[in-house]
């Protein structure tokens, strides 16, 4: 790890000061505490304290049937909740051996890539704010709003979406949703181009971010970094490419890679990923047109909740509804690990099942938790102002950090 030299003159009169950065500091964008020992403005050492919003999701999950765990995953990385929802659904589908129709895969790709864009909008926008440029953040926020309106059309909610069901979606995308997706695809590239023009060659931005918190590929791997951070350090590990899920193998996209893992590289990687996500959505829309338009879930009545009208009027639907809600369906005694490329990195679900109504053990591999542990060691010798933008570009989401 490349740390700045810490200025120590071994002068017995040197006094270090202690600063509590957080837990509710406006610059930390979340509930994180770092107790920093400072020599002037340089950080001599730091201790991270986490767990302020720990909600024991893994314990709660041991008492809930599978479909009721989806809302818990919303509250991990709430900036891109649909990716968490889909990751969980795919884990259960892998466990149960459910075959998902192609159309559902493509619909999922659209939703997941939209949420990757919103997540990167937040991260890169906030990075701009922390370096002194508010405009880009506000400008890009409008497009996050547009995506949230698409979610509203698809599932009815915005932030903690609970989108989709085990086996597919709760309902089909309506024509307004498609219109909004197409409108987003048409309008967003121009804004992203302007956003890049505002930052990429901006002298002030480059001076603030280039070579700040640079991380070598070895260190990034040793700290189990994943996602844009690992790719910015030069390792082309992307779960979508390495272990394709949801038919990603049929899509044509590139994995952007940086060179020295500094804040500037991370910014560029995230921007490029947004372009790639747009490409993926475009391709998914084209693929959707070739699929029968009335399929939006797999044919698994024992796990997919039937529509309410049928529950009231149809005997089988009522039985299945009861069985699903009471968790009465036998599931295999086995264990499964499934991971998806979350906006922050490899989001893994390790599920041990004993055939009961809820998981025997469920563990979330949360990228924010694992990425954040390098923060205190890498801050050594850094200026406070650099440590702040380093934290912004790590994109640590408190919900995912603390689970």
């Amino acid at each position, binding site marked *: 790890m490349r740390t700045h030299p810490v200025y120590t003159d071994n002068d017995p009169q040197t006094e270090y000061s202690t600063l509590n950065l957080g837990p509710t500091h406006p610059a930390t964008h979340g509930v994180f505490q770092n107790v920093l020992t400072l020599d002037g403005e340089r950080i001599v050492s730091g201790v991270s304290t986490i767990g302020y919003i720990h909600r024991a999701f893994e314990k709660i999950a041991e008492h809930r049937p599978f479909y009721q765990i989806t809302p818990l995953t919303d509250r991990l990385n709430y900036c891109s909740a649909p990716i968490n929802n889909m990751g969980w659904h795919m884990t259960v589908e892998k466990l149960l051996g459910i075959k998902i129709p192609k159309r559902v895969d493509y619909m999922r790709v659209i939703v997941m890539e939209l949420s990757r864009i919103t997540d990167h909008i937040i991260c890169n926008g906030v990075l701009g704010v922390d370096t002194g440029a508010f405009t880009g953040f506000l400008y890009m926020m409008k497009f996050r709003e547009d995506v949230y309106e698409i979610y509203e059309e698809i599932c009815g909610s915005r932030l903690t979406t609970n989108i989709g069901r085990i086996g597919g979606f709760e309902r089909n995308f309506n024509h307004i949703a498609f219109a909004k997706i197409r409108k987003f695809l048409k309008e967003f590239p121009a804004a992203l181009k302007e956003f890049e023009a505002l930052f990429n060659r901006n002298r002030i931005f480059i001076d603030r971010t280039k070579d700040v918190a640079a991380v070598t590929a070895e260190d990034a*791997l040793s700290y189990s970094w994943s996602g844009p951070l690992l790719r910015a350090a030069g390792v082309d590990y992307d779960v979508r490419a390495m272990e394709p899920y949801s038919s990603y193998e049929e899509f044509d996209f590139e994995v952007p890679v940086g060179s020295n893992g500094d804040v500037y590289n991370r910014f560029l990687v995230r921007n490029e990923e947004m372009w790639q996500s747009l490409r993926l959505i475009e391709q998914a829309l084209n693929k959707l047109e070739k699929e029968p338009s009335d399929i939006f879930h797999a044919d698994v009545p024992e796990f997919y909740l039937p529509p309410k009208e049928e529950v009231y009027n149809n005997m089988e639907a009522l039985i299945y509804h009861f069985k699903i809600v009471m968790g009465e369906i036998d599931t295999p005694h086995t264990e499964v690990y499934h991971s998806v490329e979350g906006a922050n990195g490899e989001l893994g679900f*390790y599920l041990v099942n004993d055939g009961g109504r809820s998981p025997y053990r469920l563990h979330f591999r949360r990228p924010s938790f694992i990425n954040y542990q390098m923060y205190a060691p890498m801050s050594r010798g850094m200026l406070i102002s650099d440590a702040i933008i380093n934290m912004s570009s790590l994109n640590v989401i408190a919900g995912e950090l603390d689970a």
Partner: protein
Amino acid sequence: MSKITNEELLNGIKAKFDNDVTNISEPFGLLTLETSREKIIDLLTFLKTDAALQFIFLTDITAIHYPERQKPIGIIYHLHSLVNNIRIRIKVFLADGDVKMPTATGLWNGANWMERETYDFFGVDFEGHPDLRRILNVDDMTVFPMRKEYPLEDPNRVDKRDYFFGR
């Protein structure tokens, strides 16, 4: 997708650790095996440094609790060879009252918080860990909450018991 098969991987491991790996299975294509506390660091080191395998990426460390078993606490490692694009899951089971493990922080810096989390929730004492403190729960907590003896809900509540559903 992966460049080596589970069989080749297993043969590579067995050549060095023949009697030390047991309970080999492949749930959903992910090679899973069990080893002992004494051998775990040797095995992890071998997997990480072997030129053909190169499991350089520590995906996760977690634990599980089976109160009815003789060795109730299991520590579970997930490794990923980014070079060969293959994963492996390694388990070590420990007897109650002797929940001690050697630390993997010497191999991966990232193991630090993963082991702290495992300690915090299951009380696994990772020997040699540089800073083994609670991480998500409060420091003065006295129990290890993910163990099965700590129920989330009122233990007298019976309406959700599996035996009502024929299990």
